[in-house]
C-alpha cells in the first residue's frame, strides 16, 4: 500500500499501461520534458523515450488527428489536452472522426485512444481553464466518457481506459490532483471501468455526482447526518455509457434524488439522469429529481467562481427542497 495523490496515481497508472503494452503512446503539449503542466506525465519521457512520449506542436486538432492515424497503425495513443477549454480546436477530429470511424468502417477500424482532459474549476484560473465539457462528449455516439474522483479510481480507470478498444474521453478533476492522498493497493482487483459505485449508503435521498463533485457530495452527506438525515452517495464514474442499475436501486429505496455537476445545468448530465430515473422509477419517486449545477452562463471570473460552483450548501438546499415535497 502506498499513499498517493490523484496526480501521482494517474502517473503510476500511465506508467503501468506503458510497461504493459508497448503500443501505448502519450502525446500532447508539454507532456515530455516538463511532464505536463500538472506533472501527470512526469518522468515518462525520460524512461520511455521521445518516440513514446511525444511533445506535440501546439495544435490540438493536430494531436487528435495524428492520433487517429497512429491508432490505424496499431498504436494506442493517450492524448493530453492541456486544459478543458482548449479541447475545441480538436473537437472536429474527436466528434467527426474519432467517434465515427468504427461505425463508418463497420468495425474494420478501432479507435483505442484515450483523450485525457483536466476539467472543472475552483483553481482560481483565468478563462478557458475551468470548464466542464463532459455533456458535449457524452452526447456524441461513438465516444465513451468517464471521470475519476479519487486516486485509487484514477490509477485503475486510466489503465482500463487505455486497454479499452473504444475511444474514451477521460475527465480528470484538476482541483483534486494534489488535494488528497489515498491508500493505493496495486494488487487489488478494480471494479469494471463502466460502472457506478455506491460510496455511502443512506435512506432519505440519493446524491449523484462524478469527478470533482464527489467530494462535495460526501461532505454534504456527512453534514446532513449530523442533522439526522441519511443520504446515499453514488459516484457515477462513467457518463457514457451511464451505469444506471445502482442508481435505480438506490432511488427505489430512497424515493428522492439530487444530481450535481459543475457543468451548466441546461442539457447537462443531470438532465439525462433525471429523465432516466423518472422513466424507470416513477412510482418510487416521492419528489422530482433535482439538479444542482453550474449556472447557464459562461464560467465566471475567478473571484466569484465559488458562487458559481455547486457547493455543500447548494447541495443541502436541494436536499431540503426534495425532502419538502
Amino acid at each position, binding site marked *: 500500500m502506498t499513499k498517493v495523490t490523484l496526480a501521482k496515481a494517474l502517473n503510476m497508472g500511465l506508467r503501468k499501461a506503458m510497461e504493459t503494452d508497448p503500443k501505448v503512446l502519450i502525446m500532447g503539449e508539454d507532456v515530455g*520534458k516538463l511532464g505536463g*503542466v500538472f506533472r501527470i506525465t512526469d518522468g515518462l519521457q525520460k524512461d520511455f523515450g521521445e*518516440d513514446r512520449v511525444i511533445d506535440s506542436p501546439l495544435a490540438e486538432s493536430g494531436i487528435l488527428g495524428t492520433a487517429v492515424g497512429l491508432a490505424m497503425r496499431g498504436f494506442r495513443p493517450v492524448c493530453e489536452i492541456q486544459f478543458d477549454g482548449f479541447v475545441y480546436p480538436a473537437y472536429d477530429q474527436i466528434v467527426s472522426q474519432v467517434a465515427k470511424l468504427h461505425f463508418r468502417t463497420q468495425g474494420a477500424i478501432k479507435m483505442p485512444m484515450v483523450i485525457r482532459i483536466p476539467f472543472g474549476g475552483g483553481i482560481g484560473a483565468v478563462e478557458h481553464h475551468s470548464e466542464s465539457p463532459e455533456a458535449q462528449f457524452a452526447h456524441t455516439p461513438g465516444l465513451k466518457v468517464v471521470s475519476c474522483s479519487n486516486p485509487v479510481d484514477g490509477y485503475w480507470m486510466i489503465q482500463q481506459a487505455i486497454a479499452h478498444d473504444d475511444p474514451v474521453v477521460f475527465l480528470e478533476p484538476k482541483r483534486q490532483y494534489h488535494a488528497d492522498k489515498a491508500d493505493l493497493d496495486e494488487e487489488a482487483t478494480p471494479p469494471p471501468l463502466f460502472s457506478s459505485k455506491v460510496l455511502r449508503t443512506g435512506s432519505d435521498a440519493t446524491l449523484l455526482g462524478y469527478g470533482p463533485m464527489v467530494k462535495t457530495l460526501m461532505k454534504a452527506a456527512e453534514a446532513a447526518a449530523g442533522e439526522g438525515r441519511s443520504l446515499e452517495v453514488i459516484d457515477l464514474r462513467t457518463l457514457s455509457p451511464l451505469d444506471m442499475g445502482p442508481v435505480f436501486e438506490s432511488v427505489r429505496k430512497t424515493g428522492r434524488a439530487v444530481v450535481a455537476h459543475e457543468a451548466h445545468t441546461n442539457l447537462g448530465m443531470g438532465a439525462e439522469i433525471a429523465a432516466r430515473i423518472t422513466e424507470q422509477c416513477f412510482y418510487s419517486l416521492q419528489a422530482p429529481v433535482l439538479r444542482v449545477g453550474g449556472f447557464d452562463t459562461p464560467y465566471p471570473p475567478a*473571484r466569484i467562481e465559488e*458562487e458559481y460552483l455547486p457547493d455543500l450548501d447548494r447541495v443541502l*438546499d436541494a436536499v431540503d427542497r426534495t425532502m419538502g415535497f
Partner: protein
Amino acid sequence: MTEYLVPRAEGDVQYVQLLTPEGYRVEHPDYAFDGGEDEAGTIRGFYRDMVLTRRIDTESTALQRHGELGIWAQLLGQEAAQIGSGRALRPQDYVFPTYREHGVAYCRGLDPLRLLGLFRGVDQGAWDPHVNNFANYTIVIGAQTLHATGYAMGVQRDGAVGTGDADRDTAVVAYFGDGASSQGDVNESFIFAASYNAPVVFFCQNNQWAISEPIERQSRIPLYQRARGFGFPGVRVDGNDVLAVHAVTQAALQYAREGNGPTLVEAYTYRMGAHTTTDDPTRYRLTDEVEYWKLRDPIARVKVYLTRNGLADHDFFEDVEREAEELGARLRDGCRALPDPSPLSIFDQVYAEQTPELEAQRDEFAAYLDSFEGAH
C-alpha cells in the same frame, strides 16, 4: 528521432538590426529608423516606455507572489518587440493581442489596471476594445489572428486602405507567438489574409519557447520564411532592438495601409521569465541560454546608446526611475482596490437580449443568497 531539428546556432540567425546589443547604431540596406524631427527625443521616449513596461511586468509578478493576482504572464525580455511595434501604430490602426502584450496595451493607452483585473480574476479582461483600438486578450492560442484578419477585411470594405489619407488608411496587427504558429487558426488566417490581400500585419514574437517546447518543435525553418509559402512577404527582425522593430513594423504597417496586403514580421526575442508565474522553466531549459540572452537585453542597449552619445543625462534616467516607482505604487494600490464582482453579476451580459430563463435562474439564485441573510 530528433536529428532533423534545426540546431539553435547563433550564426544561423540573420535579422534586421539597427542597434547592436553593445549600443551601436548600424545600417541596414532596406530599413532605416525614422525617429521624426527629434530623433533623440523619440529614442528617449522608447527607453521610458520600455522601463515603464518592465515595471508593469515586475510589479505584477510581485503582486502575484503576494497572492493579489491569480496568475501573471510575464513579458520580461520582450519590451523592445512590444514597444517598437506598438509605437509604430497610428491611432486608427487596430491591435489583436495574445495574453502577453502588456507593452502594446500600454502603447495603446490601456490602463494596466485593466490587465490586472483579468489576472486577478475580477473580470475577464472586459475592456471595450474600440476605446483604444486594442482587442481583448485572447488566451485560446491563435484564435485572434483570424479575428484580426476579419477586422482587416472589414477595413477594406469600408474603403479605409490605399486612399493616401494618412489619417484614414488603416492597418491591423495580429500578435501571436512561435508556438501559436502551429495552430490551424494561424495558418488559416494567413490564407485568408493572402486571398483577400487584407491589410494585416502578422507580428510573431518568437520568444524561443512555447511553455516547455522549444521553437524547433514548431518549425524546421525560420518562421518568417513561412510567409513565402502563403504568398506574402516575411521579415525577421532583432526583437530586442527597439529601433529595428519600429522600422520594420512601420514599413509593414504602411505596406498594409497602402493596400499591398499582409506581411509576417518575426520578432526574434526571448522570454526571460517563466511562461507564467505557475511555470518552472528550470525543468526544461538551461541557465546558459538565459545568460546569453541577458547580454542582449532590450533596455540596456538603448541606455548605453543614449549615454555614450550624450543624448540623455543623469536627470533623465532618474526621472524615468521615479516615474516607474510611482507607476509601481499606483499598480499595487490600484490592484488591491479592484472591487470583486457581485455574485449576481454572473448572470449579466451573457446575451445582448437577456432570456427569461436566465432571468429566472438569476432570481432564484438571488432568493437563495437572501436565505442566508440573518442565518449566519
